């Protein structure tokens, strides 16, 4: 009997310690996450940041279902709050709004179990702005007057055009951040990119920082 009482007592104290410590850690993490999270390009429907962050349960279903492998996951480098959330990965694929795979209804949005990805009723590829393409002029072969126009031809929205010297320019009002240009950019293969492996001379940047 004495034995049992002691156990029961010990359990109570440990229960309290574990429970409180656990809760404190959770609250600490909740506070920490406000610092140091960066903007990333979200799949279609994830453009309202507050809406997205409050609902995403990091299940990665959108990433898995994307027929173009255009969705990757954000890493710790993108900030604590973004870890395991979807982030467009244009080096592997670009977003065609599932035109081919699902008649223009993005599969990621319909797969999201919590509607963290949510498109308005009248959403069209032209109105959902994932990000804006930005050209790194010192890496771009076209800007080194080498006549490269691969991104210009790849853009489904005619949002990139060549200037008088045949250098590509992004028309920001037409770009929706689909990533076709970043996907085809050959600057990496041609060795004009310095730094990270997935670097491209044209990259889609999230709206706020673009």
């Amino acid at each position, binding site marked *: *009997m004495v*034995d*049992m009482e002691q156990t029961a007592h010990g*359990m109570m104290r*440990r*229960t*309290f*310690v*574990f*429970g*409180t410590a*656990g*809760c404190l*850690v*959770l*609250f600490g*993490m*909740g*506070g920490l*996450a*406000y610092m140091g999270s960066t903007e990333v390009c979200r799949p279609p429907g994830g453009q309202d940041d*507050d*809406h997205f*962050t*409050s*609902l*995403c*349960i*990091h*299940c*990665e*279903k959108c990433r*898995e*279902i*994307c*027929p173009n*492998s255009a969705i*990757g*996951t954000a*890493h*710790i*480098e993108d900030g*604590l*709050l973004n*870890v*395991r959330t979807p982030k467009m990965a244009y080096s*592997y694929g670009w977003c065609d709004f599932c035109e081919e795979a699902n008649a223009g209804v993005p*599969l990621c949005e319909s*797969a999201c*179990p*919590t*509607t*963290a990805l949510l498109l308005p009723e009248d959403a069209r590829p032209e109105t959902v702005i994932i990000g804006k393409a930005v050209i790194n002029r010192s890496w771009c072969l076209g800007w080194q007057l080498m006549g490269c126009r691969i991104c210009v031809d790849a853009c489904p929205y005619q949002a990139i055009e060549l200037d008088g010297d045949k250098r590509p320019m992004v028309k920001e009002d037409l770009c929706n951040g689909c990533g076709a240009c970043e996907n085809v950019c050959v600057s990496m293969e041609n060795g004009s990119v310095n730094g990270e*492996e*997935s670097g491209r001379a044209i990259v889609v940047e999230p709206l706020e920082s673009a």
Partner: protein
Amino acid sequence: MRRMKVRNLRALVATFVVLAVAIGYVTVTGLGNVCAAGVGLVSSICPVGALSALLASKTLIPRTLVALAVVAVLILIFGRAFCAWICPIPLVQRWLPDHRRRAQELEVETKSVIETVSRSTSEDTDADARTGGKRIEDEKGSCASCGEGTTCTAGAKMKLDSRHLILGGTLLSAAVFGFPVFCLVCPIGLTFATLLLVMRLFAFGETTWTLLVFPVILILELVVFRTWCRRICPLGALMSLIAGASKTFRPHIDDERCLVTSKGSLCRICAKACPEGIDVRHPDLSRHGVNECSKCLECVDACPVHAISLPPVPSRK
């Protein structure tokens, strides 16, 4: 031929789940992992993640509520079976020394009980009476309320512990900070995330610090805090709360076979075998009530006379 131990069968099922998720990742089936599995209406969702998301966004989302309802029904039927059969965490834990030691202790205990019973039935005298007598002395405490050889009839009470506190903290933090905080550290999610990161490392050569950080968090959670399932996991806590209303697949003892009721033995093997701290014979006196049962079938496996079963519907008694 020896029957496969249920412990190994469970490991096999859980491994199959991990493999299925990995195959799904490769083949782009969109079946997802355990955070949200299935397609369309035939889908489930992690109830802790779903509740956190609903609280964080302060909206009711039909899609999520339907998936939650599916999960609630599954838990009402199968209780915490997820914990024993699907969750990848026990796969890791079974290699930890604590778990191996417990298994060995149980083996010794089983041998001694069987010896005692067989000796007392063969009506040996003094020496056995003494060992038997000593055992009764030892065990009296735990049987005080209902007396030796009878079954506790009162239903098992639900008992709250630190996991339930953390469940509260999980939901509250989601509501306060406006995002599902627990998802960031959930070892189940991190296991599947690490699996994916390793796959992408080999498939695309994608490197990230996360590839180091996730395993480190996992190791911290599972090795340093060995008692994750027992003391911390809010998912287990939530399932145990829902399972309180469940009447199906509850462990049932056949009194005609049970050594305690048929032979007056003080066998407690099923109680010792239970990883959830349930004493099937005396649920009221045990650390946890039957609502915590994870249907792991350890008690069924351990019972020397095969007296325990988990009937789909409770037998009238």
